[in-house]
């Protein structure tokens, strides 16, 4: 079943066109990665899908419903959750409070206790350190907390922007493993990455974005074999 469908999206910043005719789709239960260099338009695409930027033309469909032009809070409430670059935790609040903030919107607030229990089954370490301030956590624990907070709004589809941002190689690997675990528990994941090598390892399918255009797409295996990707991103 199609979870997300983006069709012929054109986005401008003033007079400058940043996205050209971008189309892509994400099926339920998939991990799809969008790779591309700095300035390719990855974050712009995410911001457009989550309603922060309005497209000039094209459409975004989520679970069969047209969500083009809806405000971000309605899109969050429909079941899309967004983890911004670097996680953006609340450093002076405890882990528990950070998680509670994740279900701030009305519908989620009522079920925050159950959601929290679920997050703790994914990341037991967070439960041990429930009362600790977020700023005292290690890089890996912060990543867990960021993901946990993302889950607290009860999403069906999760966007992760630059999950590997500022993390040591070992932690990058762990973060990607966490993603797989979340997928195995029924979440659909759309990931934006510059770390092409490792993200292709865990993704089912991938899109390559260059200068605002999708230049190639296919299963991860296909892309790993493609000459263009090997040359431009994998350095082989």
């Amino acid at each position: 079943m199609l979870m997300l469908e983006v069709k012929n999206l054109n986005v401008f910043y003033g007079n400058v066109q940043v996205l050209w005719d971008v189309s892509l789709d994400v099926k339920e239960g998939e991990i799809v990665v969008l790779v591309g260099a700095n300035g390719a338009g990855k974050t712009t695409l995410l911001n457009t899908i989550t309603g922060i930027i309005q497209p000039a033309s094209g459409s975004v469909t989520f679970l069969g419903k047209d969500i083009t032009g809806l405000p971000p809070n309605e899109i969050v409430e429909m079941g899309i959750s967004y983890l911004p670059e670097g996680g953006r935790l609340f450093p002076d609040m405890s882990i528990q409070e950070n998680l509670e903030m994740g279900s701030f919107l009305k519908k989620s607030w009522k079920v925050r206790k159950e959601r929290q229990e679920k997050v703790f089954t994914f990341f037991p370490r967070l439960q041990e350190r429930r009362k600790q301030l977020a700023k005292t956590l290690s890089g890996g624990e912060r990543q867990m907390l960021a993901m946990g907070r993302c889950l607290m709004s009860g999403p069906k589809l999760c966007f992760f922007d630059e999950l590997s941002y500022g993390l040591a190689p070992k932690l990058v690997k762990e973060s990607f493993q966490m993603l797989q675990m979340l997928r195995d528990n029924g979440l659909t994941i759309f990931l934006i990455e510059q770390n092409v090598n490792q993200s292709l390892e865990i993704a089912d399918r991938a899109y390559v974005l260059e200068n605002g255009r999708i230049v190639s797409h296919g299963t991860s295996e296909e892309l790993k074999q493609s000459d263009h990707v090997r040359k431009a991103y994998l350095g082989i």
Partner: protein
Amino acid sequence: MKAENVSKRYLTPVILILLLALLIALPWFTRPYMVVLLKTILMFTILSLSWALFSGTTGYTSLATAAFYGVGLYTAAKLGNVLPVPLMVLCGGLFSFILAAAIGAITLRLKGIYFAIFTLSTVELIKNVMHWYEINVAGVRGHRILHVSDATVFYYLLGITVLLLLVTYLIKRSKYGLALSSIGSCEEAAAHIGVNVITLKVFTFALSSFFVGLAGAIMATSINYIDAYIAFDLNYSFFPTLMAIFGGMGNLFGPVIGAVVFSYLREILITRFPYAYMFIFGLVMVLTILYLPNGLVGLYQTIRLKLKQANNKKEKTLGGKHASTSS
């Protein structure tokens, strides 16, 4: 163990109720000076608690307290002869609330030092506009205010303090309080999650100013005469800020402790060293910021932690000795 927990849980409320009873009974058997002193202490307690309610949680340093306090004073001056005292006090609070909501709506998009500077100049602006108005339009400078007995003012202030403590406590425990501290911690993330950041800031700013206005309106009845320069005195912005920092904002009672200690200190310094008191005051403040960044409450917590660690160490070494002798 369980009994100990229960008794601990009831300890704070019991102490508070006893303290409240003592304060209520106080005007019956103390010297009149004591009541006057307590009035000042309570007034500063209200000011620094309401400062901490907004600025302490959101991290937006407001220096506009004097503006709202002055609005309270002026309300009493204008309406004191028309309205009964309770209604007049309520009006003082409401006018402050409205003014703060208007100022907040304009300025709470500013961040950090810009917000602080703007709020500071707001006080000056209102003071000078008021002064200009009295001289050029009204033709009268200053007002005489209806006098209310010290004990009555004291009870009003006590009531406002209790109400404010209750409101602060309830907010701290609620979802609303959580959202407030999320603004202080990372405003951008708060907005991302769906917190209506602007509305929340403006409302809390106005709510905290409401209590300042109440305090101003009732305190006015203890001053015979006010004009713009007396009413909008910048010290009413600086003192509550300093007191809240001095007491520490990590705890509900931090600003209370700060206000009590500081206003008592102020009273002593004014009477003993009338010329050097601002200097000594400044010195204490510099030392506090340098060595007690989390205030008196922070100091207490550090000491308790150190004692605990020392105890643990002791137990460990004792346990170690025990083990070695038994082997």
